[in-house]
């Protein structure tokens, strides 16, 4: 059954708010359409719509001449008219709302089918929250990545000179844009779940995930945590009417941020740090055993969490070896770090129908970032669909890492991507090394293409 919602309001809030509400309710009853109407009049807000109801609703009718907190309905089909229209033309408004629903249902159908296949109706909800986070994070990834790549054009170590333009570019791209990436991902996942009250704990949780080295996977965890904590607090805290006003501005922000923050620091942060320490020690012990195995492992770690503890442990390990004049693992790590965004770019090119327009555009940018060894270019893809994308990136990077070790490639610089390749003697076995990166990218592209479901053509 198509459920509809409506909000009515008028400037004086004495009569028309209630007349429009009654008019719509009466017509809905005649048509047999379930309808709930929130009335915002001089008596205050009556029958306030809950987030669950908004999530379930097929369309929302706003018959209002004043502000009705429209941001609550982001992403929902809305019919917006004055309060007079609500009184005069309830039948037309309800028909319009039902018709909107029909158009919406067509576009949403493939996604619902997908959810059914996965045997879970919750997934569409979680998927929606994830996508809200990813699409808000994406501009930061693009801006940050490209600006960092521009700084490499001046030479791969040019940014280390303080006060220069490359240094400024690095602090804009790396220090600011990339630093905001995970907080925004986390914040908007929480916003999608709990509306405005989710944003603060979500941003803070994401910032902590970032600072604690938990990466984007940590940011996804903090986003969901913040969203559901904020939502739960809103329902769980009951205050006398006179104190109700301080709930959204004082109590929920403080409690939700505190709960999420403490959980991130103690429940997520501590194990992440322990994990990194263990991995680093373990890798050091593994060093001399088997070159191919080491390359495979470093590659897989680089691509698994892209900035999280596994990635950091692998990278730190390789950089540490540079001091001991061991250059092989560094080459493997960079190849494996370039492969995920390059492979995903390739995937968006060879399998256009598996990606949305937005993702295909992001793919081009990811390609550029891949060339510059900015693994973060792959995060929007991985965060949006972790279960299908991460296996692909891990496989491709593991192959690239192992091949790099097999070919005996070495690298003396800890970053720079394709920019390093142009520097004489920075990389040995250049041709074979490039081949390792290409092969790894193809493996990622093919794997992701096979795992990903087709998108509806409308997307």
């Amino acid at each position, binding site marked *: 059954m198509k459920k509809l919602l409506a909000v009515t309001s008028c400037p*004086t809030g004495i009569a028309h708010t209630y007349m429009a509400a009654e008019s719509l309710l009466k017509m809905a009853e005649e048509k047999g359409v379930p309808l709930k109407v929130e009335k915002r009049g001089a*008596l205050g807000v009556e029958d306030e719509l809950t987030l669950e109801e908004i999530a379930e609703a097929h369309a929302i009718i706003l018959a209002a001449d004043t502000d009705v907190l429209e941001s609550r309905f982001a992403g929902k089909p809305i019919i917006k008219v004055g309060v007079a229209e609500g009184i005069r033309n309830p039948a037309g408004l309800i028909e319009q709302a039902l018709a909107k629903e029909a158009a919406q249902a067509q576009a949403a159908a493939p996604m619902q089918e997908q959810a059914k296949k996965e045997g879970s109706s919750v997934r569409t909800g979680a998927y929606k929250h994830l996508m809200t986070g990813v699409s808000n994070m994406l501009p930061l990834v693009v801006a940050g990545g490209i600006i960092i790549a521009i700084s490499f054009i001046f030479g791969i170590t040019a940014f280390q000179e303080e006060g220069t333009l490359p240094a400024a570019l690095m602090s804009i791209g790396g220090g600011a844009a990339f630093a905001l990436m995970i907080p925004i991902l986390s914040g908007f996942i929480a916003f999608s779940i709990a509306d405005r009250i989710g944003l603060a704990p979500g941003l803070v949780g994401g910032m902590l995930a970032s600072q604690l080295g938990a990466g984007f996977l940590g940011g996804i965890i903090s986003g969901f945590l913040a969203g559901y904590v904020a939502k739960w607090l809103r329902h769980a805290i009951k205050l006398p009417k006179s104190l109700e006003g301080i709930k959204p501005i004082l109590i929920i922000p403080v409690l939700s941020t505190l709960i999420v923050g403490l959980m991130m620091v103690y429940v997520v942060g501590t194990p992440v740090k322990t994990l990194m320490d263990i991995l680093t020690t373990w890798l050091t012990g593994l060093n001399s055993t088997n070159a191919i195995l080491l390359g495979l492992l470093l590659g897989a770690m680089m691509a698994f969490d892209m900035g999280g503890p596994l990635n950091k442990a692998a990278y730190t390990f390789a950089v540490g070896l540079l001091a001991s004049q061991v250059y092989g693992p560094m080459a493997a790590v960079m190849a494996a770090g370039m492969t995920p965004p390059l492979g995903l770019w390739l995937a968006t090119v060879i399998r256009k129908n598996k990606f949305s327009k937005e993702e295909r555009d992001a793919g081009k940018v990811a390609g550029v970032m891949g060339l510059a060894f900015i693994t973060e270019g792959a995060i929007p893809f991985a965060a949006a669909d972790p279960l299908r994308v991460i296996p692909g990136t891990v496989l491709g990077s593991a192959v690239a890492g192992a091949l790099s070790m097999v070919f005996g490639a070495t690298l003396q610089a800890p970053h720079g991507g394709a920019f390093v390749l142009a520097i004489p003697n920075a990389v040995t076995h250049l041709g074979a090394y490039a081949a390792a990166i290409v092969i790894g990218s193809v493996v990622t592209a093919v794997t992701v293409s096979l795992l990903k479901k087709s998108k509806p053509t409308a997307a």
Partner: protein
Amino acid sequence: MSSQTLLNIETIILDSSASDRKAVIKELAERLQAAGYLNDETAFLASVEAREQHASTGIGFGVAIPHGKSAGVIKPGLAFARLAQPIDWGSLDGKPVTSIILLAIPESDAGKEHLRILASVSRKLIHESFRQELLDGQSAADILETLESAL
């Protein structure tokens, strides 16, 4: 504020010959004064007029709900008038007004009970049967019964 004390058969006028807004409000206020709801008709009328200046109470469907909150009101009261000739009230739907429901609220009334009454009457107006009963009522007692159902 029960409907028994709010409504009074003495404050219902079935065929008013008033030809403009102020005249019909004055006629209704006199009835409220006579029935013991008001002790200062002038003050009450001023509060009703002030409300009309703020925004018209012509809420459409040929009905207006003027109201005033004033120290000149002793206890909450409701008066009703049906006009022989519809008059203009600056209504939202542009239609002239035939039925007028005047609400008197004491200054001391801190609650929002009168708003609830107005909201309740407003909702009822959406139902054609209610509007028709207000137009068709043959006696003050009929109208009283209809209004009672709306509160």
